């Protein structure tokens, strides 16, 4: 037992002595290699085995070098490392760790350098590739074009790409292990690069500084202050890593901020999965994501960081003749000209900064607006909900208006009515239909309303838009009965003329205004649902004395004019309606009852009824309308 203990002590002592001896020798006089040569601190010609010279953990032939100069260097931690510089035609072959790794084919004008640690791991390298080829670093195959300058340090590979050369994504050598090495390609300043997506589409990248595209374990990224990808400009003033891909998808897996583009399906996404804001993304003319940028337009978005991840996605719908559909999730900021919607993370509401660009990290002199439909979502106690009330969405008009409502086909902008026509109840609106956002013409009128327009006068765009707003205010079932709108100016005495399916408005006789248009549309609808004692509408209307007075004005006493004179007052000021609906007015119940019958028979929208009834503190819900109708029936009989 004592013998064994003694032998063990001797072995340990011997091992310690030998190790110390080697280190001392390596630091001073060089090491005799496996083939008996002293290889350090001098130029070596020919191929030598240097494995044990670099690390005692290696076999001598684990690393072979040719035409080299080898020295030991200390680093900050006083660990001793081995620097191998290669002379002309020099190379290194590393044979350990299952794979052969060769480092050759260099441009030798600057001596290629390699640094190994005490374990024999290649930890640093610096060289210029003499041919285009793949070099292995850690678990990565790194593509380097000819004349590409490679610097490998601290687990990161940086490759300076010569002009006109391509790059390829690094691949894992051992597919079962993660590829942890970060690879950053740096392009010459001013160079424009095309990167190809899996679907074959090319994306053009450029930057005002040298373009930097990297690959790490998360994905592909850039870290430029600014980057242009086709017609999308990305501002990243702090040069953060911004991951990107060509999927056009929301990705909660990136541990950082990202952009995802897919021009094949016209979708763009930018997001932040950390508590930092993403880059500002500015859309320029002819982008692939359905953001229509005209002369003075400005549109940019940013996903804002917070406790929860956030994103802004943009889907082109130009093929459907609609503006882009934008979806936001949690924090976001937008510049839409000088009107800037954003998500207030404190009160979790979508707010709007008026007359101010919220995103200031780009030259945003323009203040024109773009059209878009925006759905905003937020996380509240882990549940994803609409950031607006109910099913409301936000719609941007090309003219700068913003509306929030349930139907993006048309949302009235309640702050913007046709007061200049004396019609505060007729609103301008916003719509996701491109036809409503384009400069108004008879063509856009037809596309938006579905009604054929025959304009023999040459109406101004302003008048056409006004008529579009009138038609948009009509309940859908009533609008379906109007097939044609004729604008005329020939010799005649009428201002408006209605036939089944047809409205005629006379410009010089005062026909092209909201009142007349509404009046004639009402006739057309009346011809379908009324003008017959047996119709449901006429029975309801007559049961409250609708056809009998008092009317909105005297013309209502003319045959078939009771309904149209009532409807042309829908847009009138609330003061006028308050006078008719207030309980002080003797016939208020008849006026109230008419509103109910109008809503039920699609002469008036419920929203319009709500406006009128609000003048006397009533609303337009089902129960109220039913009650008002019954009260009108009960009171009917006292007038005529």
């Amino acid at each position: 037992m004592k013998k064994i203990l003694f032998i063990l002590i001797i072995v340990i002592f011997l091992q310690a002595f030998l190790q110390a001896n080697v280190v001392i020798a390596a630091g001073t006089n060089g090491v005799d290699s496996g083939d008996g040569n002293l290889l350090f601190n001098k130029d070596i010609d020919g191929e030598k085995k240097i494995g044990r010279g670099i690390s005692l953990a290696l076999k001598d032939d684990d690393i072979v070098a040719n035409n080299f100069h080898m020295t030991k260097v200390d680093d900050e931690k006083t660990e001793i490392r081995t620097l191998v510089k290669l002379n002309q035609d020099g190379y290194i072959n590393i044979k350990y760790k299952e794979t052969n790794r060769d480092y050759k084919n260099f441009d030798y004008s600057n001596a290629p350098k390699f640094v190994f640690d005490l374990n024999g791991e290649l930890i640093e390298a610096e060289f210029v590739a003499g041919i285009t080829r793949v070099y292995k670093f850690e678990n990565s195959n790194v593509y380097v074009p000819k004349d590409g300058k490679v610097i490998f340090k601290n687990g990161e590979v940086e490759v300076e790409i010569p002009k006109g050369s391509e790059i390829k994504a690094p691949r894992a050598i051992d597919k079962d292990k993660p590829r942890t090495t970060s690879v950053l390609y740096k392009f010459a300043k001013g160079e424009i690069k095309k990167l190809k997506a899996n679907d074959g589409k090319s994306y053009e990248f450029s930057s005002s500084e040298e373009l930097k595209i990297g690959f790490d374990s998360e994905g592909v990224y850039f870290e430029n202050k600014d980057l242009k990808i086709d017609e999308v400009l990305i501002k990243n003033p702090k040069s953060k890593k911004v991951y990107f891909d060509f999927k056009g998808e929301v990705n909660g897996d990136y541990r950082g901020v990202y952009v995802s583009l897919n021009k094949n399906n016209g979708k763009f996404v930018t997001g932040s999965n950390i508590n930092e804001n993403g880059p500002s993304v500015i859309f320029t003319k002819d982008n692939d994501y359905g953001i229509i940028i005209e002369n003075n337009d400005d549109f940019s978005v940013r996903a804002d960081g917070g406790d929860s991840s956030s994103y802004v996605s943009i889907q082109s719908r130009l093929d459907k003749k609609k503006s882009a559909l934008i979806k936001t999730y949690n924090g976001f900021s937008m510049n839409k000209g000088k009107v800037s919607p954003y998500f207030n993370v404190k009160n979790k509401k979508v707010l709007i900064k008026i007359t101010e660009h919220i995103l200031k990290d780009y030259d945003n002199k323009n203040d024109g607006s773009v059209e878009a439909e925006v759905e905003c979502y937020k996380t509240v106690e882990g549940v994803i909900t609409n950031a607006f009330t109910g099913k409301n969405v936000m719609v941007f008009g090309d003219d700068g208006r913003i509306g929030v409502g349930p139907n993006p086909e048309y949302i009235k902008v309640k702050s913007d009515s046709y007061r200049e026509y004396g019609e505060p109840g007729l609103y301008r609106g916003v719509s996701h239909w491109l036809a409503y956002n384009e400069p108004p013409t008879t063509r856009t009128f037809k596309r938006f309303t579905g009604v054929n327009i025959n304009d023999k006068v040459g109406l101004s765009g302003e008048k056409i838009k006004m008529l579009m707003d009138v038609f948009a205010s009509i309940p859908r079932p009533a609008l379906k009965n109007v097939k044609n709108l004729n604008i005329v100016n020939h010799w005649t005495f009428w201002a408006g003329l209605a036939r089944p399916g047809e409205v005629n408005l006379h410009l010089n006789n005062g026909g092209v205004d909201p009142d007349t248009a509404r009046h004639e549309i009402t006739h057309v609808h009346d011809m379908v649902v009324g003008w017959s004692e047996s119709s449901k509408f006429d029975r309801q209307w007559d049961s409250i004395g609708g056809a009998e007075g008092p009317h909105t004005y005297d013309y209502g006493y003319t045959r078939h004019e009771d309904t149209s004179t009532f409807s042309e007052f829908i847009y009138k000021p609330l003061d006028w309606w308050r006078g008719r609906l207030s309980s002080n007015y003797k016939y208020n119940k008849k006026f109230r009852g008419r509103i109910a019958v109008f809503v039920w028979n699609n002469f008036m929208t419920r929203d319009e009824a709500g406006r009128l009834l609000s003048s006397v503190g009533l609303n337009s819900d089902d129960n109220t309308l039913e009650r008002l109708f019954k009260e009108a029936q009960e009171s009917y009989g006292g007038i005529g």
Partner: protein
Amino acid sequence: MKTKLLIIGIFIFLVQSISASNFYYDVSVYSENNLINIQSVKIIFSQAKIDNFFNENFNKKTIKIKSNEKILEESYFSVPNKEIFDIKDLETGDFIEGEVNELENVSFNLFVPYYEDGKEIVIYDENEQEVVRKDISEYLKLDKDIEGEIGKGIEAGEGDLVKRKVDSIKKISVFEWILFIVLVLLVLYLVYYIMGDKNLKKRK
């Protein structure tokens, strides 16, 4: 039970989708003193359903699409021979005078869903007496020429819409085929499901 209801729901939806026709006979009609004459017929495509003007009180007529004596389609319409005009006081902006006119002569168009085996269009008066009959056998089957016909159906100046509409037709046909195949599969599954259910109940 829920699954069965869901399948039946999808089944009904698909049947409705397939039966929803997008092609219409566009029948150009001239009425003179209530005598109706069909002037021309063409085929048009419309994504939206097209209704004809109809009011019980207005000269009720019936239009039928027939294949021999089999009625493929039947719908009511009214001759739109009424008009109402309004005169304004230009100073006050109020209407002051107006009148309803009954027109003796009127041209209008009727739209009736297209049938591949439709051979005749027949119009009847309110007493179910035949008024006019028009042979439409030239449109018996929708073939490539339909593109030309659709072109005719589109207003001048709307040329670019033609292509869009023809493209829509092509897309719709593929869509309808897919719907049809899904429908057949669903029917088979439904039968299998119901039979299986019955067998199960028998066993119980």
